[in-house]
């Protein structure tokens, strides 16, 4: 064994904390985050032959973990997969936010000014509120939102991963953003 050969049994002690934090920053559930890290190590062990010494073990493990996180979102979205008709039928729709006759914002949903949002809330508080609001999204919307705006996959990649049509995808993104904005305002933004 050369000095550069990975030693899998040392991975949990060397990389466990970092990988776990990363996973937890994406899934907000400690049990799931732990499972993702464990799956990452086991997949890495299976693919040890493909490891190239020019990449660091840490980078390689993060690439595998990121793939596991995308798979996690895919399972989450597919387990609750709804078509466009069902999206229209369940949960808040455009009619909750806009007057159907003229498309104007309905009174209570009119966006309030967030001009002083950063000043009104501590950064940590803002992050915590946003996380709670994301957690309250329907699973499919949460998965699409996270894949697009946290993992920064393209619309095309997300449609492919989740088996969505682009029409469904845009409706889901739009609804997720509308609900997040409403949730953030309920929790203090725009009330300063």
């Amino acid at each position, binding site marked *: 064994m050369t000095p550069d050969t990975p030693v*899998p*049994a040392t*991975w*949990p*002690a060397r990389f*466990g*904390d970092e*990988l*776990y*934090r*990363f996973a*937890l*920053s*994406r899934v907000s559930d*400690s049990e799931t985050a*732990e499972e993702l*890290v*464990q799956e990452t*190590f*086991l997949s890495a*062990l299976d693919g040890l032959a493909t490891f190239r010494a020019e990449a660091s073990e840490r980078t390689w493990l993060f690439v595998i973990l990121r793939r596991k996180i995308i798979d996690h979102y895919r399972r989450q979205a597919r387990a609750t997969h709804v078509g466009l008709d069902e999206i229209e039928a369940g949960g808040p729709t455009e009619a909750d936010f806009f007057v159907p006759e003229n498309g*104007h*914002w309905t009174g209570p949903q*009119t*966006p309030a*000014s*967030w001009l002083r*949002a950063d000043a009104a809330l501590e*950064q*940590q508080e*803002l*992050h915590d509120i*946003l*996380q709670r609001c*994301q957690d309250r999204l329907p699973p499919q919307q949460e998965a699409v*939102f*996270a894949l*697009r*705006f*946290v993992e*920064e996959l*393209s*619309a095309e990649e997300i449609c492919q991963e989740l088996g969505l049509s682009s029409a469904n995808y*845009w*409706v889901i*993104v*739009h609804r997720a*953003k509308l609900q*997040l*904005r409403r949730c*953030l305002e309920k929790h203090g933004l725009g009330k300063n």
Partner: protein
Amino acid sequence: MLLEQQADQALAREQRVNLWLHLRYCPYCNRYAQQTVLIAEWARASASARATAGPVLSEAAKERMRERLVAAG
């Protein structure tokens, strides 16, 4: 929805003009357009912050993982 599409792909000229006109004459939509960008930025920043400062893996979990790696290897 054109707002979201605009961030991902080039809109057709007519769509671009319609969106521009709409945002020019709808102050609330203009406000929403800015908020939607902020939400995306905050989501990224929030995840990055938690990835560097969150809780760590318990020693028991590390040991369980180590044992599974040894058994599987």
